[in-house]
């Protein structure tokens, strides 16, 4: 039982995902508790794994008893176990939140929604734990296909957004596969550790450079790094809010993880930063993406679309951290995977709450009554926004802090300036909303106008918001931003610094 714990989470999620449609054939209601149970269990197991990795060092599991490089190997090292916890925890909160929201957003589709969500998480967990490059591709496709589904079940425009993403995503995945083909031809192995050992012998071979470029471009599309981000805004905007809350924190982060894994743990830091300066390219593109995303976010009128553009900018932070290719940048990137997952999770969930309560998330219509009706959600939004701006003691400050240190270490003042300017731009577009939500006087209610169908006569409960399952996940997620911020040094020292890639 214990020795196969690396494989446990993906398999658990996969089997639940398959059994949900079967078990829920008669009673659609079972889908939610089943999904919650699986998600909770995966949170527990992945937390347990972190502590085991912490105590005993990396865990491996060999499928079918075949040892690598022949068999498929699952590896839990500090990095993968950490990212797995991030993904599973955020997913758990989104799933919890979904119980109150899916009835409105995707009526009658709860069974496919939960099945797809678990499949999506299975893919994410698989990508994270696998130590085999082709296995990664398979999980990537499981992950992507379920993501297309999750986007496609949204409003009328959603299938179009999903279709576009499918085209782009398939190009990305196929590029990865193509790159892997080159890599396999020169090394004859698919196991990450094995490839890493063989690669130094063949660094000179142009096929290695081709493999690297294809893999990075492919995953860059999935990660939506500028200028490969075209699919993202529509997909996030038109997807049901509960799906965007799942995809935004997890989808692109997993791709970022793959890039970190492939660049630093397969190809090696020296090769990607010196022989073939691909990290420099990533860093510059990311820096442009940060500014581009922030500026466009300022121009958006719709909350979810604004958050989508802001995601492009935030992904830029991760890209920048990767591109710096020094320990501090790496710390910043990995920490920002955690921070951004929590921040964007919170923000998208609040957007979902707004849509549920008011039927829209159009920024120009926000006013102070929104805060009165959703006091906790808006408080959570404020906290997450402050974290996005990067004010201490929230988590967002510290990712910026490490990235700034990394940029200084690298001696690149442009990157430092970009990091700081973008936090000001973030302030502009978040305070625009906060100003409205806290200060704009509500319009005088016109006769017969009632935005939410069952609106005004609800019983105000003690906590101010009536739906517990809509409020609690948001509050907990945003509050944990403070905790992450205050105790980030523990995360950095105990988890991230334990696996600084060799050669940094």
């Amino acid at each position, binding site marked *: 039982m214990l020795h196969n714990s690396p494989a446990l989470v993906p398999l658990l999620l996969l089997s639940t995902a398959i059994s949900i449609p079967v078990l829920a054939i008669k009673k659609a209601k079972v889908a939610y508790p089943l999904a919650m149970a699986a998600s909770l269990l995966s949170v527990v197991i992945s937390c347990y794994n972190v502590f085991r990795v912490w105590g005993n060092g990396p865990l491996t599991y060999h499928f079918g008893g075949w040892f690598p490089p022949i068999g498929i190997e699952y590896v839990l090292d500090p990095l993968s176990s950490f990212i797995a916890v991030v993904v599973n925890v955020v997913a758990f909160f989104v799933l919890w939140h979904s119980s109150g929201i899916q009835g409105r957003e995707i009526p009658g589709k709860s069974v496919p929604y939960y099945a797809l969500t678990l499949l999506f998480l299975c893919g994410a967990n698989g990508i994270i734990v696998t130590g085999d490059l082709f296995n990664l591709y398979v999980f990537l496709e499981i992950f992507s296909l379920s993501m297309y589904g999750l986007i496609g079940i949204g409003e009328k425009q959603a299938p179009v957004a999903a279709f576009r993403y499918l085209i782009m995503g398939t190009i990305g995945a196929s590029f990865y596969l193509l790159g892997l083909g080159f890599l396999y031809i020169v090394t004859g192995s698919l196991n990450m550790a094995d490839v890493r050992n063989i690669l130094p012998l063949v660094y000179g071979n142009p096929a290695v450079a081709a493999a690297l470029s294809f893999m990075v471009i492919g995953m860059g599309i999935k990660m939506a790094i500028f200028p490969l981000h075209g699919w993202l805004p529509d997909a996030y905007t038109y997807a049901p809010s509960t799906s965007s809350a799942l995809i935004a924190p997890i989808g692109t982060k997993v791709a970022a993880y793959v890039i970190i894994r492939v660049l630093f743990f397969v190809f090696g830091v020296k090769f990607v930063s010196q022989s073939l300066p691909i990290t420099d390219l990533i860093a510059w593109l990311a820096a442009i993406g940060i500014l581009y995303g922030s500026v466009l976010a300022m121009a958006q009128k719709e909350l979810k679309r604004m958050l989508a553009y802001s995601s492009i900018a935030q992904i830029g932070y991760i890209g920048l951290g990767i591109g710096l290719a020094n320990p501090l940048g790496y710390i910043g990137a990995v920490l920002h995977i955690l921070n951004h997952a929590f921040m964007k999770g919170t923000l998208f969930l609040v957007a979902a709450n707004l849509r549920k309560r008011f039927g829209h998330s159009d920024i120009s219509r926000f006013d102070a009554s929104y805060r009165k009706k959703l006091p906790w959600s808006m408080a959570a939004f404020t906290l997450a926004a402050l974290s996005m701006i990067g004010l201490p003691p929230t988590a967002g400050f*510290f990712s910026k802090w490490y990235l700034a*240190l990394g940029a200084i270490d690298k001696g690149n003042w442009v990157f430092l300036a970009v990091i*700081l300017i973008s936090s*000001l731009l973030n302030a502009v577009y978040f305070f625009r909303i906060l*100003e409205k939500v806290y200060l704009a006087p509500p319009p005088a209610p016109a006769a017969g106008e009632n935005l939410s169908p069952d609106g005004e006569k609800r019983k105000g409960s003690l906590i101010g918001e009536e739906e517990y399952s809509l409020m609690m996940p948001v509050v907990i997620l945003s509050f944990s931003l403070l905790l992450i911020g205050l105790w980030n*040094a523990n995360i950095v020292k105990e988890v991230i610094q334990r696996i600084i890639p060799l050669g940094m």
Partner: protein
Amino acid sequence: MTSPEIYSSTIPLYAVLVSLIAAPLIMLSSRHAILREFWTLAASIIKFSLVFMLLPGALAGRIAAFTFWEISPGISLALKADQFGVFFALIASGLWILTSIYSIGYVRGLKERKQTRYFASFAVCLSATIGVAFAANLLTFVFFYEILTIATYPLVIHKETKIAISAGRKYLVYTLTAGALLIAATAWTYRIAGTLDFRAGGLFGDASFSPAAITALFLLFIGGVGVKAAVMPLHSWLPAAMVAPTPVSALLHAVAVVKSGVFGVVRVVGFVFGPALMHQFGLNIFLATVAGVTIILASLLAFQQDNLKQRLAYSTVGHLSYIVLGAALLSPASLTGGLLHIANHATMKITLFFCAGAIYVRHHKEKISELDGIGRVMPWTMGAFTVGAVGLAGIPPISGFVSKWQLGLGSLQAGEALPLAILVLSGLLNAGYFAPIIYRAFLKTPPVPYEHGEASYAMVIPLLITALLSLLLGLNPDLFFHFYRLAAAVSGSILGGIVP
């Protein structure tokens, strides 16, 4: 001098936390005005007592320190109540008590809305200010500095009018930009020095720099702390922020926020760069020039303001630069004088703001041109105003004279005559822009008789206390709080053995 003994203590922690704990209590008691005010007062008194407990230790060279935990590998969130910190914390927390009493009178007198948010933000601001005062290293400083920025924002926009909101925007643009610069400067310092712990005389040790790098770093720092210190050309948020309720202007824009800025300037000059580096690269000359220009320009601009609070705001801008000038001159007397001016300007300016608020609450007058003969119906208030104004002009026996004397002495010690000339000129200008107000208030006859007299006791008593304090501190600067001894000790520790 002997190196100070550092001992671990939780008092600095509690001093920071008291008002932070009070904030949620205030929010929870949003329906009960009395309870809310009780929390505020209780927190302010406890806070002041805690800080006061640290005073004897600081005077004896025993420094209380508290370290939370690491917030970034190698850098801890740490508090250290050194002499300078205690000095600033005493001023801020002591005046908070008076401001709290005054605020209660003010918001009741005007029947302000959203009093809960007002008192809660105020409490958080004070926590952040004490945090800034006790910060043991730059990162902790940045930490509390940014919290202060955000916690002040709700107070600036308190009135929720269009002007208030746009003032709030301006405030945020300035201070957040400053915060970003400060973060950059901190990160850079860490990469160069490998430490962020404040050390009297400079933390860089033997690190070597190119002149360009150190100038750039210094500019980043001054950009970071200079905004809150309202050094020109970074000052324009301060007059705009005067739309805030008067107690906010009084405490935050004369004591806590802006003084955090000048406190930061002194920290940067004395505890990050240190006199040796400042002299070596001519940074002190740059800083002194900026401060000198600010003093003169701000005094001139103050003449043009008809709005009483605006005039006080420009006066504040000028007086803050006295302190910056004192720090830039880096001579024993100038540093002592500059530091003393933190305390003296605080008591005097808060008196003036209190008076402006009292007039506004009772008579709804904001403009100087409308104040003809108001001294006749508000003799106590305008008497206190006169004390403050005379003190700011640097006329004995009010405390402003003491600090200005020390500053003048310091500029001679530094071998510079120009700063002395600036101080004298600025004193004249100060007298010039305050005299008309006093003249109008006492000697002119009101066009229409005033309907009301003095404001409520809750407002008049605090302003009389601060006026009295200004007078007493002028007679004996070492009274009660030993401000003089503390200031002299800080300047001694900064200058150490280095004779400029």
